[in-house]
């Protein structure tokens, strides 16, 4: 593991930052009106716009997070990139055309215009802000993590650096400013993910060759990856990074002292015969033990391991009740087998150490790693976590596909096209550009498992599977000097471009909501063009700083998990609202509003409850979820109930409030669907200012 400053990646990142700021300043000179700031004057060409949208879409999650999660838990995570790409198809088929034809500046604009309801605009703004901020958190985490890997700086430094550069760019140039930059950065990202991979194929073997190393037959399916060299892992004391699950007999040495709670890898059923620490550890159990309580307030024993203690965990222990083995049913195969558990450590450092260091010898199996078969095949660790893998999988797919169609910062992009037809063509090209990108992250996952399995040993944080895209290429230093560093620099640049472009797109969307909807419509409806532009700039700074602050709080969350949450909320709030607004004449503002607010709100509440449980903020919630795995599944992936719930609400409430139907709803449907050459008078909210110059 390399410490210290990685010079070559640092140079690449600095270059990227300079180019980005430079482009931003250059574009700023050509920003002349509010229309430029908000929708790039609706004059972006198809090639430029499709590259820009793809660039914006490929966030830190796509660049780093997908590869990381595929390496961590295998097949099930491939649904993430597939969902991200195919969600666009959904948009294309039902939403792209109508949305663009209707014309507006932001999605809350659309909400107001479609229903003649200022109240609805307010509700829509709340969700734009909610979804937007949820989505910025993983970008900020990506920035922080990348800089930790490159410079060994503290986590928050990357956030401040990236955040400031983007706030600067957005404040200067708005939508117009970032479009060009995003288009270029798509190509940077495309090269950054593919070029290193092709070169790695030459030295490390191809995609199929590496996947072929993993067994899924009956005999060898339970093979675990092993450390190729001696390796020291650091465990910071923040959950879940300080939980270590040992899937089999593994030996390690504590390089510094630690207080350890020794538990079982799975929750023990009530009244099962107790399994003691002496059974879970076959060597190295210390004599020094004291009683205490864990974060959930339950009584536990803390074992103090001295510096230099070697330990070995047990292979697997059968769980019994009154001497009889407890049987569990495999949710996928339906077969029964005796329940087995292994050791799980929860470690905290003693004294003033920042983290617990454990050394593993070459040849030892890696802790936390899934077996070959469960990794390679569907219904592995990700979806089976709570015992209901098919439910989890469908809910995940629904969340991502519908969520893509419900992300305000993606939707607002349609307004940058000249008309409905180009909006559709752009979407088609976006799907091509995205698809070409998304075949690569799973390759990183596969090669990662084969070549850098040590990343499994810590469950979360900057040196876990999350960073496989940055760390895997460095291996090539062993074959060609410096080549590994160069390729790692390339992927770092791609990762940086990832969170920069997505963050900038999010910031424009958040800022647009604050400046146009909150300021321009609610606070000061008579704002002049200059005031609108200033409002945009001020809002950019406010939104940017808030996002940076939130980013510092999420170091231990999976990037993809966080993105999944933004998607789930979008899927339950915006997506139902948009699809119904575009196709059902009899939808009322109250109906659509109820769907958004209650549907989206309940999805949000469900997700936040799992966050609170995992971070142990509400300690009693964790065990409650453990006792109710279906509830846990449904709260972690709420789309499967929240989306139909929202749709149902919209329908029912609309039917009940038919007297509130806008009188000209037929005209509105016409505007949504009629070809533009029929010249229907469109509402264009900044139309009056189109000629007004900004100074």
């Amino acid at each position, binding site marked *: 593991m390399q410490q210290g400053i990685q010079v070559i990646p640092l140079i690449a990142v600095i270059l990227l930052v300079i180019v980005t700021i430079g482009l931003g300043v250059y574009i700023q000179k050509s920003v002349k009106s509010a229309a430029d700031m908000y929708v790039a004057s609706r004059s972006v060409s198809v090639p430029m716009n499709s590259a820009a949208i793809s660039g914006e879409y490929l966030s830190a999650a796509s660049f780093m997070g997908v590869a990381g999660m595929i390496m961590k838990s295998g097949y099930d995570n491939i649904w993430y990139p597939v969902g991200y790409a195919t969600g666009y198809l959904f948009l294309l088929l039902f939403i792209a055309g109508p949305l663009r034809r209707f014309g507006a500046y932001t999605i809350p604009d659309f909400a107001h215009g479609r229903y003649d309801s200022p109240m609805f605009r307010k509700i829509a703004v709340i969700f734009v802000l909610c979804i937007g901020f949820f989505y910025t958190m993983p970008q900020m985490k990506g920035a922080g993590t990348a800089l930790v890997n490159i410079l060994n700086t503290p986590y928050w430094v990357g956030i401040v650096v990236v955040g400031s550069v983007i706030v600067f760019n957005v404040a200067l140039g708005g939508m117009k400013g970032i479009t060009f930059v995003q288009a270029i950065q798509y190509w940077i990202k495309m090269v950054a993910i593919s070029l290193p991979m092709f070169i790695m194929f030459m030295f490390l073997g191809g995609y*199929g060759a590496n*996947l072929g190393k993993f067994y899924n037959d009956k005999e060898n399916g339970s093979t675990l990856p092993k450390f190729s060299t001696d390796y020291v892992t650091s465990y910071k004391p923040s959950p879940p990074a300080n939980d270590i699950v040992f899937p089999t007999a593994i030996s390690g040495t504590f390089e510094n002292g630690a207080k350890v709670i020794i538990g079982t890898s799975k929750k023990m059923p009530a009244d099962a015969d107790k399994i003691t620490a002496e059974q879970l550890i076959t060597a190295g159990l210390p004599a020094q033990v004291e009683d205490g309580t864990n974060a959930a307030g339950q009584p536990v024993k803390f074992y103090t391991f001295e510096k230099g203690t070697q330990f070995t965990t047990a292979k697997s222990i059968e769980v019994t009740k009154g001497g009889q083995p407890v049987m569990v049913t495999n949710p996928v195969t339906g077969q029964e087998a005796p329940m087995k558990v292994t050791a799980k450590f929860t470690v905290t450092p003693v004294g003033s150490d920042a983290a617990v260091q454990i050394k593993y010898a070459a040849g030892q199996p890696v802790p936390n790693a899934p077996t070959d078969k469960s990794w*390679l095949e569907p219904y592995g660790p990700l979806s089976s976590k709570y015992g209901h893998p098919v439910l989890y999988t469908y809910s995940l797919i629904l969340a991502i596909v519908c969520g893509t169609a419900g992300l305000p910062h993606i939707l607002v992009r349609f307004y940058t096209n000249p008309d409905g037809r180009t909006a559709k063509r752009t979407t088609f090209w976006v799907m091509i550009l995205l698809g070409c990108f998304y075949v690569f992250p799973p390759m990183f996952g596969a090669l990662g498992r084969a070549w850098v399995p040590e990343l499994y040993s810590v469950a979360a944080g900057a040196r876990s599977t999350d960073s496989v895209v940055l760390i895997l290429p460095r291996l090539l230093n062993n074959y060609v000097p410096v080549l590994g560093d160069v390729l790692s620099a390339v992927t770092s640049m791609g990762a940086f471009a990832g969170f920069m472009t997505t963050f900038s797109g999010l910031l424009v969307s958040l800022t647009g909501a604050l400046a146009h909807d909150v300021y321009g419509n609610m606070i000061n409806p008579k704002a002049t063009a200059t005031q609108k532009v200033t409002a945009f700039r001020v809002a950019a700074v406010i939104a940017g700083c808030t996002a940076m602050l939130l980013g510092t709080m999420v170091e231990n969350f999976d990037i993809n998990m966080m993105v999944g949450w933004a998607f789930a909320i979008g899927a339950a709030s915006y997506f139902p609202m948009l699809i119904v607004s575009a196709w059902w004449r009899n939808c009322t503002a109250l109906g659509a509003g109820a769907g958004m607010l209650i549907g989206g709100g309940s999805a949000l509440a469900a997700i936040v409850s799992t966050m609170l449980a995992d971070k142990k903020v509400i300690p009693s919630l964790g065990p409650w979820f453990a006792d109710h795995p279906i509830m846990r599944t449904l709260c972690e992936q709420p789309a499967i109930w929240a989306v139909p719930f929202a749709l149902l609400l919209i329908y029912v409430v609309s039917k009940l409030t038919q007297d509130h139907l806008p009188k000209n709803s037929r005209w509105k449907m016409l505007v949504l669907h009629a070809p533009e050459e029929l010249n229907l008078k469109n509402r264009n909210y900044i139309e009056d200012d189109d000629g007004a110059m900004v100074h």
Partner: protein
Amino acid sequence: MSISQREVLGKVGENKLDLHSEEYLQKLMTSQFALSFKLFLVFVIILLGLPVMNYIAPEMMNVRLFGFTFTWFFLAILIYPITWLISWVYVKTSIELENEAATWADPEEH
């Protein structure tokens, strides 16, 4: 265009409809929705059918091909060109439909 689509659209060149009439709106929305929905169905069957297949036929879906399992190869690679094909068909057909729909009524005078 399929036969059913032609039936919905009516013959080209008939007397123009009033842009603001119910008839025009119905014709417009029904034809657009029919196209979108059909392609959506194709897509959904593939997308939502895969987890079911993985569940009921795991040996078949996990058969090894050049190192890959079939289901990994399908989900990680093959599915993208399938979506491109569906979108290409949609964009082409829906733009033709729009051009067609523009001839059914006269443009708005301003």
